[in-house]
């Protein structure tokens, strides 16, 4: 009676292992392509010449792609750090007894923040913070806040009441319950929120170039303004690859925090 169950179990384990191995391969390949293009876009110059014979300079050369990539990652990293810190703190606050009454207000504030187009947020931020890095960070942080807040609240909400009762009944303090039970159990959903926030910001960070923040958006905007499609492709290719690789990395991180439903 047990044999077929056991063997089908083993089979599903095997396909799982296979899927994971091929997933590794895809991720590894994409990372290599991303690094190679960032460091050696110049090697593709003949290709871009062939594709865009009418352009005199089909390869963006005002800055190295490595510099642009690092600046872009820097923008995303700093703004995401701010979104995550504020977002998780706000999510925690409104799910504690002291902050419960602020929950509707915080949720709708964050939601309103997301309905503004990022360009509009930039337009407001520039007169306040000047040109360059600072207004971009403000816009990105605001923009990435909502998914983190929403998922922090949702993730903490998935922790069953009986689990919390057991934690209290076994003599855990509030902090112990939060650190040992609530956060680990909510982590998968919270990370999913961070994932959305970071991916949105990787895309949105390109707009920072319009107010003078260096990023992978710089060749993109330059290409749009100067009617140079090759620049646009070079910028977009790197932004897209960066987003996909980051997304896959987050997927693996999320998987670590699933505890069999």
């Amino acid at each position, binding site marked *: 009676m047990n044999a077929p169950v056991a063997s089908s179990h083993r089979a599903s384990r095997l396909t799982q292992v296979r899927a994971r191995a091929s997933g590794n391969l895809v991720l590894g390949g994409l990372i290599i392509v991303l690094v190679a293009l960032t460091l050696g876009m110049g090697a593709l110059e003949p290709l871009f010449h062939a594709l865009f014979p009418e352009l005199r300079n089909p390869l963006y050369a005002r800055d190295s792609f490595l510099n642009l990539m690092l600046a872009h990652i820097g923008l995303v990293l700093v703004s995401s750090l701010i979104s995550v810190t504020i977002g998780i703190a706000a999510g925690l606050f409104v799910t504690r007894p002291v902050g419960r009454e602020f929950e509707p207000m915080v949720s709708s504030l964050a939601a309103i923040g997301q309905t503004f187009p990022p360009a509009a947020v930039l337009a407001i931020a520039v007169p306040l913070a000047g040109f360059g890095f600072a207004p971009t960070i403000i816009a990105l942080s605001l923009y990435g806040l909502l998914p983190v807040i929403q998922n922090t609240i949702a993730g903490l909400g998935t922790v069953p009441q*009986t689990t919390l009762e057991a934690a209290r*009944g076994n003599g*855990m303090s509030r902090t112990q319950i939060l650190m040992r039970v609530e956060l680990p159990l909510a982590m998968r959903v919270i990370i999913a929120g961070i994932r959305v926030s970071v991916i949105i910001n990787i895309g949105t960070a390109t707009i920072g170039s319009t107010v003078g923040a260096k990023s992978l958006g710089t060749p993109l905007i330059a290409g749009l303004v100067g009617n140079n499609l090759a620049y646009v492709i070079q910028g977009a290719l790197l932004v897209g690859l960066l987003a996909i690789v980051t997304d896959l990395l987050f997927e693996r991180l999320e998987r670590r925090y699933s505890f*069999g439903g």
Partner: protein
Amino acid sequence: MIELKGLTKRYAGKSVVDDISLTLEDGEFGVLIGPSGCGKSTTLKMINRLIPASGGQILLNGDDVADLPVEQLRRRIGYAIQSTGLFPHWDVARNIATVPQLLKWPKSRIDDRVDELMALFHLDPAEFRGKYPHQLSGGQAQRVGVARALAADPEVLLMDEPFGAVDPLTREVLQAEMKRVHQQTGKTIVFVTHDMDEALSLATRIALLNQGRLVQYDRPIELMVEPADDFVREFIGQADLGLKLLSRRWVHQYQREARLQQTETLDSLHAHGWLIDDQGRPSALAGARLDDADAITRVKPEWIATPEMSMKEALSRMVWYRVMVLPVVDDAGKLIGEVGMQGVMGMQDEPEGALS
């Protein structure tokens, strides 16, 4: 020892637990029982202060629980609930180790304690230590839940319908295990259920609640033979009260001397007699068959009684195997007496003895 003194809980002016006073001595198995919503869980949770009391006092071994730091209090009290409340992100060993870890026991002591508890609940550490709650059956999860509650050797164990969500067969196994664990550990237990059979089989004391009030607090047998009022009588259940009573009475209270005979012929002067082998074990019964009163019947292991067997079980065996008497044997299997259908109607020794 747990003492409740005038314990009261009010929600919006309405008392859901109303002036309950009772004392549970060390080592007793106390059961709180009553209809749904009568305040059982509320009473239980006031003991470990998951719910604050509105009035009255609870003493745990003489200490007022209200005076103790709440986390410290809860680490002195085991708590097991119906849904187990196991932490899904921790394996079995870590779940059981919850309170010892909070108490910062050294790792080797925690490991030893986890193994000891797993052995107590017949869970093979090699197989189960590293399993996660979602990989356990309902019965196994419940065992782990109780093991966790016992981990730091608490002074009392509180259990809120721990076996309410498992199937009837598993429930019986878990009840038997709980009985054994209670005997082995000598823990004072407060156990909530709304299943009267469960209460009668486990309790040494039963507190029957109705609408927040304590209706009767007695030993199980007293609840049955001297119900305080109609509510108690009705709650215990009229239908099989006789059988319930027998489930709290033991073969040794009804045991009679067994008459031995040497030959396999029926001695017509006496209704029946026993043949024994050279080691004194019952081998055959002459007479006393329901269908064939004169037959010689080989004794089968299935219808042998022991002194500790409940009379309900003995009676059940008589009916099922169609014999009017069962041989009673000691640990070595030697015939020491018999228990018969007629005996069920009256006890052999004085009634005081049955009230235990």
